[in-house]
């Protein structure tokens, strides 16, 4: 059963007098539990496609289905609920809420979902431990390094057990070691929890972890291939 299906997605942007094509009749099907990397140069449409699948942006035309529900037709409220219960986001720029501690950032989505205090606190502690942030639960984002912040963002994305994690250049601001740790974590979640991953990147080391590699250019999919993932030797 397919988890995500995009049909003939088109999206253009106006930049001054110029019209830029973000997505040009994109068709894509991502099954549950897949580990997909979107690659391509800047402006190829990777982030636009991620935003459309995540319900953050609306396509000009085409359809997006998630588990049989057409999400591009949803109103703002139901769309927010869909994101809340199904999708975990990992952004390039960490994007933590600065007034909340690491633990509170991880608990945030669960709290909005309505998970009871004790349960979400325990889950948040467990996940922070899993991403190697024991003892840093009470630190605010400004007191954490870039790598630590990104791990908190990953913890937040997976804490609510989403069906799908959308990650946009998740390793762009991380050093090699931190990047490997993060990708190992993603692989583990994909393998053990059947979480679907769609990662936009132009980092070849990240692409190596993917089971499926989709290349984009000028808003079009130019290749879509399965590959044997290369797991980190560490």
């Amino acid at each position, binding site marked *: 059963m397919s988890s995500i299906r995009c049909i003939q997605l088109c999206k253009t942007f106006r930049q001054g007098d110029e019209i830029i094509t973000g997505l040009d009749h994109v068709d894509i099907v991502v099954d549950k539990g897949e580990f997909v990397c979107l690659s391509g140069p800047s402006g190829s449409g990777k982030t636009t496609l991620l*935003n459309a699948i*995540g319900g*953050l*942006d609306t396509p000009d035309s085409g359809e997006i289905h998630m588990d049989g529900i057409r999400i591009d037709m949803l109103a*703002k*409220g139901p769309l*927010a*609920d*869909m*994101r*809340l*219960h199904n*999708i975990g*986001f990992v*952004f390039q720029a960490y*994007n933590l*809420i*600065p*007034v*909340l501690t690491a633990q*509170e950032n991880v608990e*945030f*989505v669960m*709290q*909005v*979902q*309505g*998970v*009871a*205090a004790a349960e979400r606190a325990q889950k948040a502690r467990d996940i922070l431990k899993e991403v190697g942030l024991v003892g840093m639960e009470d630190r605010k984002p400004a007191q954490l390094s870039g790598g630590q912040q990104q791990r908190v963002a990953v913890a*937040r994305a997976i804490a609510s057990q989403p069906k799908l994690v959308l990650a946009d250049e998740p390793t762009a601001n991380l050093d090699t070691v931190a990047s490997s740790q993060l990708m190992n974590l993603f692989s583990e979640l994909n393998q053990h929890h059947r979480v679907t991953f769609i990662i936009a990147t132009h980092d070849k080391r990240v692409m190596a972890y993917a089971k499926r590699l989709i290349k984009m250019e000028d808003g079009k999919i130019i290749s879509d291939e399965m590959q044997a993932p290369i797991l980190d030797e560490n």
Partner: protein
Amino acid sequence: MKGIGIFNLRFQVILVLSWRNLWRNHRRTIIMLAAISVGVWAMIFMTALMRGMVDDMLKQGIQNLPGHIQIHHPDFRDDPSIVNSIDEPSGNLLDALNDPATKAWSTRIKVPAVIASERETRGINLLGIEPGKETLLSGIGDQIIEGRFLRDSNDNGLIIGAKLAERLETRVGKRVVVISQDPDNNIAERGFKVVGIYKAKMPRLEEFNVYAALESLQDLLKIKPQISQISIVGEDFRDIALLYHRLKLATPENLEIKTWYELDAYLKYMLNMMDGFVLVWVIIIFLALSFGLVNTLAMAVFERVHEIGLIQALGMRPGMIVYQILLESLLLLLMGLSIGNLLAFITVKPLESGMDISIVAEGMAMMGASSMLYPSLTAADMILANMVVIILGILTSILPAWRAAQLDPVRALHST
């Protein structure tokens, strides 16, 4: 139940976000807090001063004749002559008047008359009073500035106002002649010795109200034991509904019973005008405050566009974002109100024993108020100021909150 539980959890998270966001920019929040506090203080303090002044004017107005409630002949208000007299109270009415809920009451004769000295003649309101009881009602006994007050209901003396004494060119100890009519339209006249001169807080009353003992006047007008009116005072002139109802039940049907605001429309309008003025005053101050409040919230939203985009991306509904911004505004308002109310309480309470404003006494006297101002901090005025600030504060916060909720998540996430 589950829905309520989820709402509570969401409320907790937006409460934490609102509170912490408020203190991200300490300086701006403290400045806004100071503005709200001073504004609320000014609202309540000025209202207390105005309320005190108007209360004083009303009390003077009510004391200087009608009382809080008055019982008289049904035609007395149209024709306040001696023919429209009534019997002294008895039976159920007397029992009701003597009930402890009635603070004070007294009977009076009130007829138009002419007073003549050796040099001048003037038209007056001639009032026959029970001296002991009347002092409790109108305080006339305490306003004597020369001579003495009437001793009892048989006293043959006359009390006149300082202004009238000046017009008549008379003084304590001199004789004057009072001329009126008896019920048969015969001239009733008698010489009285001026035994006292009073100074009223409302100078115009000094020229017209002349006081004699009740029984002396009954003898002069040949109406014993009839009277013109029964004047009654309760504990608070604003809260006389119960007393009025009780007395109305005991009042014979052939008599008319009226409250002070029915008897003196001017005083009623003054009270209504004061209430309206307080509301206008509170709203004007709030409008000045609202610019700062909207600006603070608009800046807070503008600075957090990226974050708002983030919480939208994470699944916060637009409605919850509106609530979060409104909650931020409400927290700011509640803190400002608490400080403002406390400041008002601390500054008004010590002044409630009276502020000497004799420097503007003449102007105050013209308005019917005394030279001492007693600021009045009422719960109703405080509630009004607080409600106006909260309701209008929330209303003015809706626009920045709504704008925050309408942000496009992708654009918001890309803003710096």
